């Protein structure tokens, strides 16, 4: 199969998933509202002292982003599995890995990207300075694709399994620990005056690693789930 044809199929899969999300907006919006609500609950639970809030802001935003991504994972393959589309993808002349990569990219565009764009607004609630907000967005832009890539493996493994929605969090959350550490660490170390470059580079390294292994492992998981 020619390279152009693979790329155009990849684009077509992404467009398809975006179109489907557009026709059913509530799925995407629920995830975003969840993110907003969880983040807004923290000041209520902890108290409104700004110094304290500034300190916990990066961690809170990142944990909420992990949970919101988590919430959207079961939907990644479930609908396509239920109506038989996934079988068709597995039998396509295009390698399944390409189609899966397209779906993961679309998942990021619909969950990770909006989270990253919303984060500065929520950061204001926590009195984060403007430059720290910039680092926060950058860290989320690099880190959230990793969440989608690792999450896809979990979603594939738990596809059609009893209690899959809860199970996926048990499988995937421990694997999210490095992203959480370096994502939140980037903002903290920027605020502390140490600069965020090292953290962001490591996040980018995780992204490269996850982009290499993630689609492959997801493909294997999906073939197992379809058997």
């Amino acid at each position, binding site marked *: 199969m020619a390279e152009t044809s693979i790329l155009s199929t990849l684009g077509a899969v992404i467009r398809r998933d975006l179109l*489907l999300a557009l026709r059913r907006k509530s799925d995407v919006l629920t995830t975003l509202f969840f993110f907003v609500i969880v983040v807004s609950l923290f000041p209520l639970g902890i108290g409104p002292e700004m110094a304290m809030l500034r300190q916990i802001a990066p961690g809170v935003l990142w944990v909420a982003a992990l949970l919101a991504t988590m919430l959207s994972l079961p939907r990644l393959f479930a609908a396509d599995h239920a*109506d*038989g*589309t996934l079988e068709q993808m597995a039998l*396509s002349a295009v390698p399944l890995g390409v189609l899966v990569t397209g779906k993961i990219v679309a998942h990021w565009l619909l969950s990770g990207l909006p989270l990253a764009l919303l984060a500065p607004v929520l950061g204001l609630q926590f009195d984060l300075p403007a430059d720290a907000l910039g680092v926060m967005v950058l860290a989320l832009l690099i880190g959230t694709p990793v969440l989608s890539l690792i999450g896809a493996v979990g979603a594939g493994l738990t596809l059609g399994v009893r209690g899959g929605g809860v199970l996926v969090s048990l499988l995937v959350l421990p694997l999210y620990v490095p992203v959480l550490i370096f994502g939140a660490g980037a903002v903290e170390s920027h605020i502390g005056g140490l600069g965020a470059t090292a953290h962001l580079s490591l996040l980018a390294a995780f992204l490269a690693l996850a982009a290499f292994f993630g689609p492959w492992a997801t493909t294997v998981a999906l073939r197992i789930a379809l058997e």
Partner: protein
Amino acid sequence: MLEASNLECVRGEKSLFRGVSFRLEAGTCLMVQGANGSGKTSLLRMLCGLSQPAAGEVRWNGAPIGKLAEDYRGELLYCGHAGAVKDELTALENARISATLAGAPVDEESARTALRQLGLKGREDLPARVLSAGQKRRVALTRLLLEKRKLWVLDEPLTALDRAAVTNLCGVIDAHLAGGGMVILTSHQELPLTGRVEHLRLD
């Protein structure tokens, strides 16, 4: 040529069938028959390579299908119980998108022609949500016309179709066989086909 040798299927602890062998030549249709739960769908999924047989092997032109991977899938069209029709998309979008996913993108005009040929004229731009079960099945079957594949594996293609649509589908299958194609299908009804038909009973 598709060749199955000594296939065995195990579901849970029960062996559904064993020792299933056949050869399918170009221009032939294989009707798989058997009671509910005799393993018809499992057999078809094995032939597609979706599941692995507990024993035995499936070969396409002499090579095991597991080795051929995408090369085999490029010759294959599988239409399962679930039609892979999205409620949120229109009939036309469904037809074009499933062709693209299969690796054989088509332009709008040929998709419209195929939909008309299966009796969906005037329904092309309606969301699949408002279509009846039979009409959805017809949308799923447009893939037969759009993806130029050699081997068709159809699981209960007649489900929910009315008499006119059955005649229509038989015409499509006959044309495919006449052109040197192969068809494997399961059905509880007899299909009035004119081409060469062989039977396989699972018990």
